[in-house]
């Protein structure tokens, strides 16, 4: 059988592996769930107490930012997992078998989407309790969640590509922490208008900002986007950024997988 024919089977097996790991370690899911929930408290109430945003409450401004963080957080486990597989010979074994590489990696990333969906729901519920609202109807809201999952998918591929390139679990773990400052350089937590001009430009062109602004627009939450094109047209920009990320990360991940340990 050619790798093309086996792709769905390989993707399903690979997805199954990820989901089994989560099933055996409920703590994994719980910890990825507690982070955004804790952030509603820390950012929403601690920082929010001193924060004024135009057009509504800070917590309503914040929630799309936290949703985008959940999406961005795909990078870390994908990166560490990719590096672990490469470092411990799992990638070698899979490469010595007649399997579809694209299928394997797609399965992993797709399984991660299910995990993200499970994390987004309670995050949203906590948000609702803290005063966040969906103001533009269910259709738009589903659109926003769709964009978030699309971004998570792209981030998962990016993490996999980077992790396979790094090949060492410890190094990948240390590098993955860089996603935290990356997520701060956005409009997720504060409007970019108050930043120095150069910093605001970086934040506005950060793909995370486009996702955040797209969610604010679709949920009907308060926002104060800068003048840059991506945050003025956040839905189109999100699609653009995701397409770009996927166009780079998918071939890169498959290539790094094929060259792992060489």
């Amino acid at each position, binding site marked *: *059988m*050619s*790798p093309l024919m*086996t792709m769905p*089977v*390989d993707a*399903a*097996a*690979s997805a*199954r*592996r990820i989901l*089994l*790991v989560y099933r*055996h*370690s409920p703590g994994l899911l719980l910890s990825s769930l507690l982070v955004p929930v804790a952030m509603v408290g820390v950012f929403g109430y601690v920082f929010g107490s001193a924060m004024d945003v135009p057009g509504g409450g800070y917590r309503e401004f914040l929630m799309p930012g936290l949703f985008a963080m959940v999406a961005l957080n795909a990078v870390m486990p994908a990166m560490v997992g990719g590096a672990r597989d490469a470092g*411990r*010979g*799992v990638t*070698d*074994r*899979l*490469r*010595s*078998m*007649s*399997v579809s590489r694209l299928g*394997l990696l797609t399965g992993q990333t797709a399984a991660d989407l299910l995990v993200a969906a499970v994390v987004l729901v309670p995050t949203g519920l906590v948000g609702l309790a803290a005063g966040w609202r969906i103001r533009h109807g269910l259709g738009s809201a589903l659109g926003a969640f769709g964009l978030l999952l699309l971004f998570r998918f792209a981030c998962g591929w990016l993490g996999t590509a980077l992790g396979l390139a790094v090949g060492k679990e410890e190094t990948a773990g240390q590098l993955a922490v860089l996603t935290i400052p990356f997520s701060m350089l956005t409009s997720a937590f504060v409007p970019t208008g108050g930043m120095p001009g150069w910093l605001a430009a970086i934040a506005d062109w950060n793909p995370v900002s486009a996702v955040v602004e797209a969610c604010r627009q679709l949920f009907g939450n308060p926002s104060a986007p800068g003048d840059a094109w991506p945050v003025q047209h956040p839905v189109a920009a999100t699609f653009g950024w995701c397409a770009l990320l996927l166009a780079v990360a998918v071939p890169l991940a498959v290539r790094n997988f094929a060259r792992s*340990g*060489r």
Partner: protein
Amino acid sequence: MSDPVIAVRGLGKTFGATRALDGLELDVPEGTVCGLLGPNGAGKTTLVRILATLVRPDRGEARVCGHEVRGEAAAVRRVIGLAGQYAAVEEGITGRENLELLGRLHHVGAARARARAAELLGEFGLEEAADRLVRGYSGGMRRRLDLAASLITRPRVLFLDEPTTGLDPRSRREIWSAVRELAAQGSTVLLTTQYLDEADRLADRITLVDRGRAVADDTPQRLKAAIGTRVEITLPEGADLDRAGAVLAVLTGGAPAVDAGQGRVGAVSDPARELNLPRLVRELDAAGMVALDVALRTPSLDDVFLALTAGVKEELAA
């Protein structure tokens, strides 16, 4: 004679400035266990990785069951199994789930994957641990699971890259008996190892690899016969070990090794020389020395190894 299952001609591979393989030649006939023996960095792992289609050679040719590893990688992958230096298993799931998932990835179907997993768990004595997370397995159990994972499709050719490195003696014996069983069932096995006793016990033929080349290829017995006899003399405290070494050098034609701590001098004789105990004692006597113990032994593979790979002694002693 039928074509060899593994045929390697003039294989070369360079990583940066390191020449990992330098014109290596190898033939492994069907149904045999070939032991690749060599120090760290000799090129053993590179050879296995090329044969398992993980690394592309720079030059030369390598065929597995007649399929060229570069041009026909997909065909090669269908006939091989690989167990590496690491236990390449997912720690976060159970042993049974690991084997079932790999069965699915071998496209045997879910039901067949389940049945084969159960079979292998039984064969490798992992039934009791089957439904526990691999994270809690001992090193030996992980390696056994890893070996089982390489056998899901009953591959015609099995590559084992240092399968017992870092294992305790009991786990090593368990892996050894599994490998013998496989060979008895007709699989062709290529095994790399740094342990001479491992190669001695498992392999039908041994290929000594040094600096990217095969420097010898024969049965363990004949390799040992090819390098004469090992002589060891133990002397009382205060004896002149260097003088005893000089006597040995003249007698054996080999380079003496002095172990001052043990008061011992040893050498491996030139195979062409006739060496006997009375002559040895007479010569020592003539030199005014009385030995506590004099022994003549069939050389170990260590001796073969050192004789054939001069210059890597430090590495082996380390």
